């Protein structure tokens, strides 16, 4: 594997750990809320919003690793009906198109994160927090996933049947 490939997989792996930790945090936030409300009569005003932010981290931090593992849902009726060579060519084509779409979406989100940072935009929540870190996580997930897709399109694993 090339150095750039190892770096890409390393970044995807680190983001995947962030996704797992965010999921654990999400469960703990809600458990704390139920306990605080029913055991101590002291409901919080921050858990619902905090859970939302961690959900964004779960989805978009896990996106590059899900893409690397080819875990995404696809309708493979047509590719599986084709011969191996044609199926491989079609898969490379769709991976390339998906990489472009992900890259475009990621760069749009990155520009928006920058705009939010410059303007100091906050979330519309009981305890407002800056919007840009969440948008930046969305952008990062999409951009790294785009690179993974581009790698699939350029060099699909040998012997793989799409």
């Amino acid at each position, binding site marked *: 594997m090339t150095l750039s490939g190892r770096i890409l997989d390393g970044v995807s792996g680190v983001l995947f750990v962030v996704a797992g930790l965010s999921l654990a945090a999400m469960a703990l936030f*809600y458990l704390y809320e139920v306990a605080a409300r029913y055991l101590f009569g002291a409901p919080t005003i921050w858990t619902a919003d905090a859970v939302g932010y961690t959900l964004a981290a779960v989805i*978009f931090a896990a996106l590059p*690793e899900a893409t690397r593992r080819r875990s995404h849902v696809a*309708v493979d009726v047509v590719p599986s009906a084709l011969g191996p060579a044609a199926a491989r060519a079609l898969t490379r084509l769709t991976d390339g198109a*998906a990489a472009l779409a992900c890259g*475009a*979406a990621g760069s749009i989100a990155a520009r*928006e994160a920058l705009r939010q940072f410059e303007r100091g935009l906050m979330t519309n929540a009981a305890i407002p927090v800056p919007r840009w870190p969440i948008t930046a996580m*969305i952008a990062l997930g999409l951009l790294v996933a785009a690179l993974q897709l581009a790698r699939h399109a350029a060099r699909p694993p040998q012997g793989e049947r799409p």
Partner: protein
Amino acid sequence: MTWVVLLIGAIGLLLALLFTGMRVFAAFLVLNLAGVLVLMGPRGFGLFTNSLFETATSGSLATVALFVLMGEVLFRSGSVDVLFDGVDRLVGRVRGRLYVVTIALSTVFGALSGSAVAVAAVLGRSVLPSMCNRGYDTTRAAGTVLAGASLAPIIPPSLLAIIVGSLADVSIAGLLVAGILPGLLLAALTLTFVLSRAAPDASEAKGGALKGLLAIAPFLIVVGSVMGLILAGVATPSESAATGVFGALIVAAIHKRLSFKMLREALGGAALTTCVILVIVCAAKLFAQLLSFAGATRGLVTLIGDLGLGPDATFLLMMLIPFVLCMFIDQIAFMLLAVPIYVPLVALQGYDPIWFWTLFLINLTVGSLTPPFGYTLFALKGASGLSTREVFAAAWPVVGIFITGMVTLWLVPDIVTLLPRLMN
């Protein structure tokens, strides 16, 4: 009629991208980026990012992530094996006992995983070979597994119900509870069908009903911490998913299977599954806003009104479309395409939203087990090694059973609406 051209163009583009095998989330990204460019130009990109942000931070979708984590903890801790053994013992010596075991297990597994494909894969690999080895009819055994697996999206906690509730702005707690009686009805119909034709059983019951009861007793903690807390009004569906995770950890500890390694694997598996499901929702959510912006939502409502179809004919039309399309495309992808179009029509026709969306979910499930392209069929074929012909032969009676069930729910809507009404 510009909206008609745009709507047909959008649906055509999406279906074409899906059929090339493009990943579903990427196909929706292409559709929505193209839609924003055509309708608003680059100035609409802020709306695109906003849609990703708002969907990804939606508290109701956190429920999906936490229910997936609960299922992962139970599967990876091996607690499901204990459950399997317990149900097997509890069923005891009855005619066609493995059919009963399969339906009972499917109901429980479905409740734990919420995914028909997952249940078909698990049972296709475990119970089905055992049934075939013991002389059960292969077609009927495979049909029982398919029917059982198809209960998963209906019996709570159903991931599809949570996503529909979130998209259509319908009570998620109501939708979850509404699935209980229809799920039991469909399970009973399937059992009646298979047992009416069951040959005397060559398999040996394990015996020890009390031992079986003790084995499954800890799972009541999970059921209680999810449905019990929702019904008692103690926790919201999202919070009950977190208490369900806690309950699953307790069950794993009772079975002495709680470890850091298991927890790490469960978190990784759940994060991956959550991402795969919810990134599609995030990518697709803007489609509803674009439909509305293009005037398609209002145009469709006016068009259906002008057609002069009665509520029953409209209902049949609205059910026929998912039935056909879900033979070909993924259930979640179809839902994201159809729900924004259906929401105003449901309001226009005055259907009870809980009743309509529950039947819609069952219909999606029927579509996904109808030959030749149903997803659940492929999962069973992949897991069991049966031939395509055997899987298709097994599926047709199940399709018939589920359609019978749907007709019953259409004629007797109280089966769906009774529990949500009592809960309120």
